[in-house]
């Protein structure tokens, strides 16, 4: 019995060793890292809308204009203009597939967020750079999106030319700022990927390889624990020189 436990322990240690180092060192990294930096929000600012709705100018939302039914409709503001945001397919979470339409609440016109509008919205959320904001490139991305693995909607990506390589993401349907991602966040996310063994980058830890390795790890620690008890029982742990 003890012989096979020792055998198991020794050979499992060989298989699990490298992963164990990865788990522990990435865990240590999360313990020590600067959480503000890792959030990616170094240059993010709240979008303060000072918009006061002038109800005289308000046009009622024309639900009939849209060919799809709406489950909810919100009065929002984008770039200091009021808009009706229709949600045709409201998912449980924002990052799951949603379907939107936007209508200017003063003119009643339907609107789609184009590149220049995406840039303007992104700018309102960015506070860095003394000499203004230097935009490196703008792209419309369909999921999967490397920086935001959970996202399932089409996003505008506005890449900023700053030392942190900030990318600003906003939902192409609703214009909502999804987040800022910079190299500090990408660095932390890389460690999360390692910690979760999420090599397919789906953004969670429900994968077969981590289940497999954690089971091996469990057996390794149980066999080690039994071995320790066995040695202690035999009086092998002594402080004095044996």
């Amino acid at each position, binding site marked *: 019995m003890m012989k096979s436990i020792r055998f198991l322990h020794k050979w499992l240690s060989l298989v699990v060793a490298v992963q164990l180092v990865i788990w*522990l060192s990435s865990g240590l990294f999360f*313990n020590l890292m600067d959480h503000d930096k890792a959030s990616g929000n170094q240059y993010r600012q709240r979008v303060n809308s000072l918009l006061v709705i002038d*109800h005289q100018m*308000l046009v*009622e939302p024309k639900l009939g204009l849209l060919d799809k*039914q*709406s*489950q*909810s409709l919100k009065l929002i503001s984008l770039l200091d203009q009021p808009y009706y945001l229709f949600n045709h397919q409201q998912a449980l979470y924002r990052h799951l597939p949603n379907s939107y339409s936007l209508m200017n609440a003063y003119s009643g016109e339907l609107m789609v967020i184009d590149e220049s509008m995406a840039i303007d919205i992104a700018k309102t959320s960015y506070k860095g750079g003394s000499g203004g904001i230097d935009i490196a490139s703008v792209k419309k991305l369909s999921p999967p999106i490397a920086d935001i693995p959970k996202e399932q909607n089409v996003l505008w990506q506005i890449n900023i030319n700053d030392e942190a390589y900030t990318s600003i993401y906003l939902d192409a349907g609703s214009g909502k700022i999804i987040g800022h991602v910079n190299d500090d966040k990408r660095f932390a996310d890389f460690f999360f990927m390692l910690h979760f063994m999420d090599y397919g980058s789906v953004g969670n830890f429900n994968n077969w390889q981590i289940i497999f390795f954690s089971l091996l790890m469990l057996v390794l620690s149980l066999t080690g624990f039994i071995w320790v008890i066995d040695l202690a029982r035999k009086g092998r742990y002594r402080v004095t020189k044996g």
Partner: protein
Amino acid sequence: MVVFDIDYIHGDSLINEEQSAIDNKQIHYGFKDLFIDYPLAENVELSTFMDVGVYRFTQQTKHGKTQIMLDANTGVQFPALNENMAIKLAEYYYQGKAKIAEATLLKDTAPAELSSRHLPVWRIDFDDFAFSTLYISSSSGKVVTRRHQFWRIFDLMFTLHVMDYEEGEPDNSLLLWFALFALLAVFSGMVLTYYRVLKGSFSKSKKRTAANHKHDNNIEQGA
């Protein structure tokens, strides 16, 4: 933790995702009317409350932000949810088949699993296998959060995982020292593995001397 689907843990399957569409014919009270009656309204949303068109919005008052819900047909404000309505609503949202075990109105204090900004809230406990609970805001009629036993266990396990017995964040010094000692243990274990498993098995028959053998036995027995 890794075996359980995280979406299941977050109770995504507890809630009925289907929502009814807004019926234009039901709406005779417009956004304009709303802003005339409530000039300070913020975050105005038109949606449904059990198939009835409603406006929901917040309004800044002396006592902080308050949630208001209006009938989109008449503009009449809904009273705070009573027990019957809360139960009806919970049954409407709940995906399972179990009966409701208890409905409690939480007015002033929220349990740890509910943020106190949602108060006042109806806590609806279901008599199901997972001890599911829905928390429904009594002012907006929305399910603000949900919990079941597996999620509660998961939270506990996460606390153990990051060894934080105070705040639930993975940046405490207890974890730091345990991680450092564990790394030390792993590296010494790797040295042992190298000598005992790798070198041991691949050169066993060739160069193993008796002295070597004795040395190995000592290591094995922890002396």
